[in-house]
């Protein structure tokens, strides 16, 4: 044994001893990250307050869900990484089975089949579970292999990712499909996937774009992409959302029209103002300053999340935590980009701000895992 190796092991033990001396480490919660998340959640609740336009029951329901989300965070933080590692293949397989069941027995809502009715007791969306299960499975697969992954292992990982992503795309739920793919793929990137391969496969996809356009995309999806380039071609139909959301954001100006003063959302021009398009309400009422503040908070969350991930004591924990952070970013980017009219409209909520429980709970559980990997010993 070389000296350096020995030293490092010692110092790691030292470090963990210091860490565990802090009270918040003993409950496995990172105060900085929790503070940042809470700032975003409170800010989001203020915007949502305006977007619900006086619909109190809706607002209270969201408050309850966020309470549940905090509980999910704390619970997820208590479980040690090796627990997730052991459960990863199992959760993934269950998720796949559920996804197949959804295809056959799912409940149809607004034209797509995403929900599973469990004995009439409650409804459950397996694709939401896959946002956590896929990165877990990929991280589980890679932690046993030496990194960066070889071509063989990379292809195996792609299979793990694409199988559920395609099943979800069939529902159809392009938004979640993208998030699941993003979550799994970010594990590969963090694991050191060769940039050259990424570049080549990117070029290959670009070359295949006409074929994808022709054979993979559904008519309405093609319409959404076309609309992006010329919203005025169908101002009352496909172009409506994008015209109204850019109008809302643009009319907010630098400082906004003032909280609760957004005419676009109050007069119901803005579609889905509470859910996917809530950033337009923010942009209209609090202006560029408001949106920029939120984006800055998101950036800080991502930075803190990545730092926590880098402190993980196992490869699995590191990869998983890092992947969750990037999934979170994909949420932010896809949502803001689509509402501001630079990406086609896909169903992705603004994390921790949009009305709706499932994604908030999943995300907060993800942050719980991130906090777990730093404060728990690898084994």
């Amino acid at each position: 044994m070389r000296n350096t190796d020995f030293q490092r092991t010692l110092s790691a033990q030292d470090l963990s001893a210091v860490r565990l001396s802090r009270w918040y480490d003993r409950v496995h919660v990172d105060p900085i990250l929790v503070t940042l998340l809470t700032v975003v959640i409170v800010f989001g609740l203020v915007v949502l307050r305006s977007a619900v336009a006086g619909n109190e029951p809706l607002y209270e329901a969201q408050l309850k869900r966020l309470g549940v989300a905090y509980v999910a965070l704390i619970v997820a933080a208590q479980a040690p990484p090796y627990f997730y590692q052991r459960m990863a293949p199992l959760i993934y397989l269950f998720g796949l089975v559920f996804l197949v069941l959804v295809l056959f027995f799912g409940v149809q809502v607004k034209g797509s089949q995403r929900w599973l009715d469990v004995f009439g007791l409650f409804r459950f969306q397996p694709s939401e579970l896959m946002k956590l299960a896929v990165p877990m499975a990929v991280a589980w697969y890679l932690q046993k292999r030496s990194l960066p992954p070889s071509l063989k292992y990379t292809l195996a990982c792609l299979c793990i990712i694409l199988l559920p992503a395609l099943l979800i795309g069939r529902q159809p739920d392009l938004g979640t499909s993208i998030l699941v793919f993003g979550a799994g793929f970010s594990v590969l990137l963090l694991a050191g996937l060769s940039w050259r391969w990424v570049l080549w496969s990117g070029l290959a996809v670009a070359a295949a774009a006409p074929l994808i356009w022709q054979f993979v995309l559904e008519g309405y999806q093609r319409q959404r992409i076309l609309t992006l380039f010329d919203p005025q071609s169908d101002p009352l139909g496909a172009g409506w959302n994008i015209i109204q959301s850019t109008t809302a954001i643009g009319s907010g100006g630098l400082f906004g029209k003032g909280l609760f003063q957004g005419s676009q959302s109050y007069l119901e021009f803005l579609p889905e103002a509470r859910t996917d398009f809530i950033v337009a309400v923010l942009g209209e009422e609090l202006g560029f300053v408001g949106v920029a503040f939120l984006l800055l908070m998101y950036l800080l969350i991502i930075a803190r999340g990545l730092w926590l991930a880098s402190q993980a004591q196992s490869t699995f924990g590191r990869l998983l935590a890092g992947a969750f952070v990037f999934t979170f970013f994909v949420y932010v980017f896809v949502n803001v980009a689509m509402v501001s009219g630079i990406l086609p409209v896909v169903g992705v909520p603004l994390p921790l701000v949009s009305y709706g429980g499932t994604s908030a709970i999943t995300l907060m559980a993800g942050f719980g895992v991130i906090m777990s990997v730093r404060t728990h010993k690898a084994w």
Partner: protein
Amino acid sequence: MAFESSIKDQSREVELFVGRATTLFVGVVLLLGILALRLLELQVWNYDTYASRSDDNRMRVQTLAPARGMIFDRNGQLLADNQNASSLALVVDEISDVQKTLDALTSILALSEAQENEILARLRSRRTSDAHVVIIDSLSESEVSRLAVNRHVLPGVLVVNQLVRFYPYGEIAAHAVGSVRRMTDDDLRRVDPVQYSATTFIGKRGVEAFYEEQLHGAVGYQKAETDALGRKRQTLDVQSPLAGKDIHLHLDIELQKASVEALSGRRGAIVALDPRSGGVLAMVSMPAYDPNIFVTGMSESAFSALSSSEYVPLFNRATNGQYAPGSTFKPIVGLSGIANGRVAWDDEIEDRGAFQLPGQERVYRDWSWTKDDSGGQGMVDLRRAIYRSSNVYFYDLASRLPIRSLIDFADEFGMGQNLVLDIPSASQGLLPDPVWKQGVKGLPWYPGDSVNMGIGQGDLLATPMQMAVVAATFANRGYRVSPRMAQESYDGDSSAAFATASARTNRVGLEQLSDDDWEKMVASMEDVIHRGNQGFRGNGTAWSYIGRDIEYRMAGKSGTAQVVEISQGEEYDEEELSEFDRKHAWFIAFAPVENPTIALAVLVENGGGGSSVAAPVARAVIDAHMKQQRLQGLHNMAMAE
């Protein structure tokens, strides 16, 4: 060894991870930077574009229709009112699939196919300036609530309140007041598009049409905040519309009602004037129509039934029905003879019931002629010729009068002219003369034409309105008036013309006729009604029908106008003629004789004898007028005390 390599892996993997995470974090910062740039583009660089787009979204400038002026009778009774109605309107710009919306409406409101077609027609003929198109005029309360319940599936569908015309007297005053109709494309081309941008109805007939400009008022505007479904949330700025002017008519709705009753369902017309002003006190044309159906909408079949009926209820007989005046023309012929000096009041001729022009075979008969009785009124002077309505006297007189002077004289009474000041498109009748006959018929004026004109037959035509003017002229002892509906001019520019026209015109036959001549003619016409108990052929023609129990002095003249020519030697037999070939019954009258306050003309289409059929109608109308005058007199006295 495995242990060692695992440790090495760990350290390398941490480095790898940190490197990758750093790279990706840089990517995150770049992508968030792109989002920030996009937001700057929208919110800062292109702020003006989006701000105005947002304002365009929420603000809607709506034009506001002015309330139409109301129409009152001379005693302040409301003849045309405005009522609030809930109407269904579509904001077409906000409906992506109009057919789908219509289907939904059809199922919610249980619309009939005819209604659907009407809606489609209205959508086709909509004006581009319209913010919304009214597709159903008056909704019931239950329809309004059903629409409210289904509001979420009906974007762009509005329930709007609009003022619509209401005619409380329905068909009683239909032809007098006129009616409004939904504006058509033709109307739109004629009117000021700005002033009418919010207006749905326009005056189409009668007073409503003539005073359209005054009744309409001026358009208003409102700037309103409107939501995505086209519903108004709040009003930001309003410029109120200016209501139209109210119009007060000479019409007396009580007299109008009495006139309708007096006709008791028969076809015909009554025009009653105030001879002092020319104001129309009553104007009835029967059968009539309910003008309210033009407002609330009616089915196509109902409209075609109305417009194709052989009894032409939409036709205003009072101003546009042209009939031979028959014997009601005789006082004009008589006075023309006096004025011309061809006859004196005490000149007598013997009326044996027949008249022949020298050297001609055709026999002109007395009205009392039958196959068994040659008829004739015996020795007749002008006065007796009037109250007995001697045909032979006027055949003879007309044959001796220069035709030009008779025609010019009749012209002074308004025959062949439209004197009505404020009723659109009243007919002018026909006063034939040699020039007209040559031009239209290609024939010269025969002496027989003059003979026929002597008893108001031949080509001579007059409307009941014109004959009411004749009656008023006699009532005024020669001063003609121009009939008018409104009490004053409602048009600033022409008020001077209106005032001049309201003054009496120069006296008819000014140079040639004395006051005495007029009084004698009035007395002759008085005899038509009041001369009674004089034995065989001694009574006024109308006495036995209306003169026995009359309590005031009334002057008049009956007339019975042939519709088809009865060939020589044939008797007129009502039974043998079809309904529309029977004689028209006329009566013109005025009262009280000394100081007339009413002058009227009654026409009963295909009614029969003037004295027997039209005179009782005239009496009933004048009775109603006199009763009212008496009551008003008592009222005024009471007020004075």
